[in-house]
């Protein structure tokens, strides 16, 4: 990032290569829409580029990056843009979702069951308050530490633990039948 700050375009390319995956995945799980996730991820990197000259390495770069991504994701959710929150199987395929259908030898029933379970997981995540959702996404999928999540969300570490505890408790209750 320090090289990017000095105007090195190649370093910005490297930064994109290294961080686009986690950012896109995080935003997709937040907004549950691949097209929106990609657009928001572009905006994240655009903001990083815009702010490159004022960047101060006071915190970890990923913390700063996820703070921008979380801010955009939460704003998008808050503004009620998530009317079409999760897409159907056909839409996902069209929009480039790498579905985790393990193999094509599965029977139709098994695939339907898988889709049904996936739908339930998505609905359970979507039912979480936005901040809890962001905390779970960062903890479960991006494997960020409590302190990092606290920095991203602008709260204390104990508040993050509390957020996560309540979020996992809700998810466990909603998805208990899947155990």
């Amino acid at each position, binding site marked *: 990032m320090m090289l990017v700050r000095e105007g090195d375009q190649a370093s910005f*390319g490297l930064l*994109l*290569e290294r961080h*686009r*995956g986690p950012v*896109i*995945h995080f935003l*997709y*799980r937040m907004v549950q829409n*691949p097209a929106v*996730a*990609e657009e928001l*991820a*572009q905006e994240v*990197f*655009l903001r990083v*580029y*815009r702010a490159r000259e004022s960047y101060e390495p006071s915190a970890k770069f990923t913390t700063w990056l996820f703070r921008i991504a979380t801010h955009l994701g939460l704003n998008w959710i808050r503004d009620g843009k998530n009317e079409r929150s999760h897409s159907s199987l056909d839409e*996902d395929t069209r*929009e*480039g*979702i*790498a*579905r*985790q259908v393990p193999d094509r030898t599965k029977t139709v029933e098994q695939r339907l069951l*898988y889709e049904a*379970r*996936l739908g339930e*997981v*998505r609905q359970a*995540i979507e039912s979480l308050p936005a901040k809890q959702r962001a905390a*779970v996404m960062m*903890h*479960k*999928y991006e*494997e960020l*530490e409590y302190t990092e999540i606290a920095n991203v969300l602008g709260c204390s570490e*104990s508040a993050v*633990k*509390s957020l*996560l*505890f309540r979020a*996992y*408790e809700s*998810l*466990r209750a909603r*998805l*208990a039948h*899947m*155990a």
Partner: protein
Amino acid sequence: MDCPIKGGKDAAADLIVGFCAGSLDPATLVAFERHLEHCTECSAQVLAQRSLWQALDQLPAPRINPDFDEKVFQRIAQEEALGILASHRLLSWRHALPLAAACVALGTAVFMKSPEPTQAPPVTPPQAVQIEQVEHALDDLDMLKQMGFENVGNADAVKPI
């Protein structure tokens, strides 16, 4: 290890979530594993959290668009182009405003310092009549000389007949 559930929700959550996420430090991990051997309540919680973990693992990750980077660079280029235009616009305004002010000041100064407009004397057209009058006068003089006025043209010498 005391049962974390009896120690409070936060402590229990921290341990159970940490255990499933694999983020416990080695000493705590060993102690908690020993505790799980005889605590059915904590074991049930761990089981529930593990199955939740597995359920969440099913959530797919989107395939990243191969031209994602290109799109970002395009947006940067667009922004920079717009930024350059905007700065040109700003520069032109920055220059135009003082220039306009200077013009107004200069115009005012010129207007204030210029002499008051005076009425130009009426331009008289060349009098062709005057030539005729001179000719007439000369003719009259000749005529008078012929009539016996010798000293015509010399006022002192003119004597009436």
